[in-house]
């Protein structure tokens, strides 16, 4: 028997236990996509004006910031962390962009500088979480107030509103004569990039491993801290991008832009099937989650219902989604596939999801 030198295939293995269609269709992602299709179809038939192509136009413009931020947020939550400061970074980006523009810095340079600052803000979160070993929940609650405070403080009472029309028009432009916003193109590109990074690169494999078991990942050579630092920086950068978008779309740089957006993003990501424990989730589901919330909001508004119902539905969907996961998991455990760490039979602290003092 020679293990390191030559091959001695003694056994063969099937790659998968279930056929491909079961693996694709019997997932949280598929369920949420199906729900989206059902809601969309229902709304198109029942709700007046919903089938109008302009619905798509407004919907895309509306969900763009949430969708943008949801991408890095998905990766962060999969590593088992969270970033609540994203909406404040949006405000920060908007204000910096505005102030630089007011001071006469050319548009593109102002944009790049604002984005850099936001990446630094994100890295600040990342350093506190990885180098200092602080819980990201507490850290980002703190930086949420800090970044927002800086944004609001820097601009004070004013909103900067003298933006060149060309830029605002670019953000809201349509592709040709269609009702599809031009924004869709970079958005789809970003989605593809994030999906590839998460699902088809060694870095992405490290993200999942870090979320499922920080220790096992570290013991396998995954640099968990560096991974998280990169993701927090990325989150700052993309949130900054959303801030630029906000500024240009509304032609107004304000410190209070996107207030409360962080919870919407987290809700959408979790609805999209990402586990708050980390280690589980996929980009298609998240996209569907974001669009689903946007669609329901759009449909209800068209139906003349108030914003309040939208809140209730968002909350119910969120809770239903996670409870469904836990109920499914509970049944799954009977067949022996459930994550060990939720199982009541095993109180071993070694597997508790939020293991503290892990140094």
């Amino acid at each position, binding site marked *: 028997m*020679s293990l390191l030198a030559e091959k001695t295939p003694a056994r063969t293995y*099937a790659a998968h236990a279930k056929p491909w269609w079961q693996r694709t269709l019997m997932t949280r992602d598929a369920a949420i996509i199906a729900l989206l299709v059902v809601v969309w179809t229902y709304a198109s038939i029942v709700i007046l004006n919903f089938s109008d192509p302009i619905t798509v136009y407004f919907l895309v413009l509306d969900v763009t910031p949430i969708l943008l931020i949801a991408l890095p947020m998905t990766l962060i939550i999969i590593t088992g962390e969270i970033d609540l400061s994203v909406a404040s970074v949006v405000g920060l980006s908007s204000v910096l962009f505005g102030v630089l523009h007011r001071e006469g810095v050319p548009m593109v340079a102002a944009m790049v500088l604002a984005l850099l600052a936001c990446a630094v803000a994100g890295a600040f979160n990342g350093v506190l979480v990885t180098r200092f070993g602080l819980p990201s929940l507490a850290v980002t609650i703190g930086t949420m107030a800090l970044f927002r405070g800086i944004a609001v403080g820097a601009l004070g009472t004013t909103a900067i509103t003298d933006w060149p029309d060309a830029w605002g028009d670019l953000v809201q432009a349509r592709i040709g004569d269609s009702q599809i916003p031009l924004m869709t193109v970079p958005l789809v590109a970003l989605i593809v990039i994030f999906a590839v990074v998460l699902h088809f690169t060694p870095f992405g494999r490290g993200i999942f491993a870090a979320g499922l078991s920080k220790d096992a990942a570290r013991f396998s050579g995954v640099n968990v801290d560096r991974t998280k630092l990169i993701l927090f920086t990325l989150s700052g950068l993309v949130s900054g991008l959303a801030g630029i978008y906000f500024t240009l779309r509304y032609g107004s740089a304000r410190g209070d832009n996107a207030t409360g957006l962080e919870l919407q993003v987290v809700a959408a990501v979790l609805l999209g099937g990402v586990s708050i424990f980390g280690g589980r989730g996929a980009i298609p589901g998240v996209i569907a989650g974001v669009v689903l919330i946007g669609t329901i909001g759009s449909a209800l508004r068209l139906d003349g219902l108030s914003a309040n119902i939208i809140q209730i539905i968002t909350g119910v969907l969120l809770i239903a989604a996670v409870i469904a996961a836990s109920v499914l998991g509970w049944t799954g455990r009977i067949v022996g596939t459930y994550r060990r760490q939720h199982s009541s039979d095993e109180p071993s602290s070694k597997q508790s999801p939020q293991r503290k003092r892990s140094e």
Partner: protein
Amino acid sequence: MPDTPAALELRDVAKSFGPVRALRSGSLRVEAGSIHALVGENGAGKSTLVKIVAGLYRRDAGDYLLAGEQVDFRNTADAKQAGVAVIYQEPTLFPDLSVTENIFMGRQPTNRWGRIDRAAMRTEVVELFARLGVPIEPDRPTEGLSIADQQLIEIAKALSLDAKVLIMDEPTAALSGNEVDRLMTVARTLRDQGCAVVFISHRFDEVFALCDTITVMRDGAYISTDPISEVTEDEIVQRLVGREVSDLYPKLEATVGKPMLEVKGLTSTGLFHDISLTVREGEIVGLAGLVGAGRSEVAQAIFGVDSYDSGEVTLDGRPIPPGDPRRAIEMGLAFVPEDRRQHGLVLDAPISRNITLPTSGRLARNGLISTGIENRSAADWAARLEVKAATLDALAGTLSGGNQQKVVLAKWLSTQPKVLIIDEPTRGIDVGTKSEVHRLLSTLAQEGLAILMISSELPEVLGMADRVIVLSEGHQTAELSREEATPEAVMRAATAHHSTTLNVSEAS
């Protein structure tokens, strides 16, 4: 049963965790006023049995009687209520709370108004500690206590319950000789007062000195019960293992080459001091010592998952940068950790992803990796190690312990290492797989791999290693050649206090 009911009786109790049958048919009958030894190899199901008695697990089948009454506990509080006290194998304390609170949690003495009587608690703890001769400050938090101190608190906790049945799951593993003697005194006193005591230990000297009856378990099943006076140590070992011990260690001759792993003066405050060792091509070096001696910490520091304060590590002559496991892997170091479930495997990830995790960078094409690529590599290595699994996307956590260990080995061998550090290679593995692993290690050494093997099982160390290095309390107390390494020599070095470092020749 004709005579008076036993204090504790289990009949054909079974327990499975998913596909893992931890306990097939566990039986145990303990009389009041006796000390009963429960022995079995690692993974024989002893702790599982204990946890069923404690009310922590619910049995899948079988009978559980206390003083002749059928019982069925929903949780550990019920069991405590019924007079069952348990000292678990791993100490389970609340790190943020004080020693006193840990001892009384859930049953603190209260006054009429529900106010906790702290003074009474403290008085009782002081009294308990005095009886046990424990010098622990009752008001300090338990965080940062040594394993031995934590174990002593567990013992105090169990004693403070007025228990009819006391179960101790390897309580002495981390204790010094003095502490063991004191514990034995306490156990005997309790016995004389009519308590039924169950004592689990891998140390036969203790078992024979303390107990009056002995039950042997193997592979989750009951084997035998005898009065201790009617059996010999050899007979027990034979029953434990189920075959001749000498079969177990198929050591192959290997040619020892140049030094591959060299460690010089490795020190980490509070954990280990001035560790220096060399492992050569084709050589298996054993790292022996008692639990808590700091061997795992040394290994983790070498690999880079832990930091260290001073010292240096080189692999094939090139220094391994501290704190960078990825670099260590690239340089040819592989590390099979002691705790498979926490460190070795991502239990909730498929087998294939587990095997390819350290090599995913190498496997990627144009920076991209796919399940297909992973499966091809994983299938190859799983086959070489004969992992018993149906599909590659089965979660690693669903495999039995032995197969999990094979997956870990597959994962590390797929990195094509030059040096393999393997911590407790056969912990919790059944006897069959155990010898497979041993054969594998021998083969690997023969192929020129340098292996550093940490093991708490003396026969394994003595059977497998070309050289044995012994650690005690974080200090290197002996380096013994294969010939010098007798059980007595290793044990003496392992229990030596570091100020009295052993002279190797004297020890042999």
